[in-house]
């Protein structure tokens, strides 16, 4: 026993070198905790959080370089595997964290609107950033987990801070959002846990990566039950039908930066682990059950998300349904399950991160100026021309129209689906065709709600006198450089330029993604 302990300790110590970004995240948590003891200064704490996340992103980038397509590291007694897949996804999570911190800055400073709970919000600045960093850490661990225990723990590491963050507006609605999120999330993760326990019973191991895992065990009713239960947890994280009902309430109630964060970081992490999980299932063994189920979920998710979004009056709630629908589109890449399908899924994830943050950034921009319902965006276009145009670009990209990265992403992911339909193991499977048709036709539906805000901003009552309740309120007093709109718009401009650039030169991004292989 001593020798094996010594071996595994050796393993841990060698692993630490590859584990730098996660260690830095852990250090960041401690740092924020300590800083919170001494100061409540918004700028200092935000800057520290920003620096921590940037350093992590840089470390992640450094880690990515030596990871050529063949190398992956098994760490901590095969608890996690760092591959270039997890490395790239981790980089996306870091990026999401950085953008969230940048978005949160004005959210804390703003005092005119959202007055309720302001005092508490400012009291818990460091806790707020700490929870964000912990979620990023949880995401990092989740995307590299190959062990059921690690999956469970990292999911909880994402979920618990999420429940708290959803309530960080400290008002009535926010508490309700957090409450519903908690109830739904806790039940989903408990169900998933039960599925995991059944897995363990059948396979005798927590490592779900073994090649022969599903080959040794036939499809028994119990295996179906465990797959279904386990899926519940993953689908809940990416807000896919039928595990989506929490999303609208939480999105409406939570602070806008947090909503943007929720719509990207836990979703991408959940997607990554779903990929890992599905990729070991008997996908190519001639049993298309998993693929059929995923395709069905994808169709339902896209359709339910899009059609529910049509009737929304609150922009954030509409974006919740939009993000549900986008989950469906992300799943398309997984349904296509081919190397290119997964690569395009990663491509889509990247674009999704950028465009979603662009939209939420400007939704917050307008929210802080009193535009809280879709109808209230009347005349926004004439008063805030450039922000409205940037928002329009974001929405166009989410719809998937050229000339934005959103179009390229959709084109690629549906190409992969078509390719899978025409010459993969499931050649000619009709459900793929249905997914193809439903997915693309849903784009038409999505245009309606995505264009509603620009419609109000630019078209509705363009020349009529401004509604008094919006524009007579005093101009917003920003006491920081980042809150000033010219600097704030710089971030939006960068995102817009990147989105346009990716349309005209997708090779820039694909070149990086191409390196990723899916041995995982």
């Amino acid at each position, binding site marked *: 026993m001593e020798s094996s302990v010594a071996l595994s300790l050796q393993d841990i110590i060698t692993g630490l070198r590859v584990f730098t970004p996660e260690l830095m995240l852990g250090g960041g948590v401690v740092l924020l905790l300590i800083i919170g003891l001494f100061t409540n200064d918004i700028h200092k704490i935000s800057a520290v959080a920003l620096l921590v996340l940037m350093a992590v992103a840089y470390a992640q980038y450094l880690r990515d370089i030596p990871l050529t397509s063949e190398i992956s590291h098994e760490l901590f007694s095969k608890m996690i595997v760092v591959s270039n897949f997890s490395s790239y996804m981790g980089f996306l999570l870091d990026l999401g964290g950085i953008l969230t911190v940048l978005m949160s800055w004005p959210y804390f400073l703003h005092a005119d609107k959202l007055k309720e709970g302001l005092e508490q919000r400012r009291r818990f600045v460091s806790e707020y950033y700490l929870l964000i960093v912990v979620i990023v850490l949880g995401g990092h661990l989740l995307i590299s987990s190959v062990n059921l225990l690690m999956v469970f723990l990292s999911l909880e590491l994402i979920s618990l801070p999420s429940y*708290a963050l959803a309530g960080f507006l400290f008002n*009535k609605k926010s508490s*309700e959002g957090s409450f519903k999120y908690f109830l739904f999330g806790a*039940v989903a993760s*408990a169900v998933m846990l039960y599925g995991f*326990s059944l897995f*363990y019973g059948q396979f*005798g191991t927590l490592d779900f990566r073994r090649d022969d895992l599903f080959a040794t065990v036939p499809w028994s009713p119990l295996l179906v039950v465990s797959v279904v239960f386990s899926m519940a947890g993953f689908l809940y994280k990416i807000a896919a039908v039928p595990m989506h009902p929490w999303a609208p309430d939480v999105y409406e109630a939570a602070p806008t930066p947090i909503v943007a964060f929720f719509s990207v970081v836990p979703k991408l992490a959940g997607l990554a682990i779903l990929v890992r999980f599905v990729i070991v299932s008997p996908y190519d063994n001639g049993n298309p059950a998993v693929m059929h189920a995923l395709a069905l979920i994808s169709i339902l998710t896209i359709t339910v998300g899009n059609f529910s979004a049509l009737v929304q009056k609150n922009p954030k709630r509409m974006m919740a349904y939009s993000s549900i629908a986008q989950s469906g589109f992300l799943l398309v890449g997984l349904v296509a399950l081919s190397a290119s399908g997964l690569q395009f899924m990663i491509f889509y994830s990247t674009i999704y991160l950028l465009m979603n943050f662009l939209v939420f950034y400007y939704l917050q921009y307008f929210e802080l100026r009193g535009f809280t319902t879709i109808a209230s965006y009347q005349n926004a276009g004439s008063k805030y021309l450039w922000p409205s145009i940037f928002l329009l670009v974001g929405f166009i990209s989410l719809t998937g129209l050229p000339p934005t990265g959103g179009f390229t992403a959709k084109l690629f992911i549906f190409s992969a689906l078509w390719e899978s339909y025409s010459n993969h193991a499931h050649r000619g499977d009709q459900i793929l065709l249905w997914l193809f048709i439903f997915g693309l036709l849903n784009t038409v539906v999505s245009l309606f709600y995505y264009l509603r805000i620009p419609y109000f901003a630019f078209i509705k009552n363009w020349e009529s006198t401004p509604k008094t309740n919006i524009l007579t309120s005093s101009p917003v007093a920003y006491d920081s450089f980042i809150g000033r709109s010219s600097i704030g718009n710089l971030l939006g401009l960068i995102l817009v330029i990147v989105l346009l650039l990716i349309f005209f030169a997708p090779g820039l991004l694909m070149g990086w993604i191409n390196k990723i292989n899916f041995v995982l």
Partner: protein
Amino acid sequence: MQNLDHMLYLGAFLFAVGIAVIVVKRNAIMVLLGLELLLNASNVNLVVFNRIHAGRIDGQMFSLFVIIVAVCEAAVGLAIVLRVYQYYKTSVPDEVSELKD
């Protein structure tokens, strides 16, 4: 003690009762209790399965971590329930519904 099935049935039973409690009870704290039942159902499974796969003690270790997670969830959950209680003067999930389509 060759047959372990009865303990698995116990796990399944606890799971089903937990679901029933969560659905039926009109009180957030009761829902928390149901949640604990769900987690314990998994724990029973894990420990029992560890008997079958006795080479390593993965199952037992897992159940230890489940207990830790249960503690964390209960703490956060109770805090949230109390918070809701401050605003709504109720902890009935159905009555907490300002957010709607």
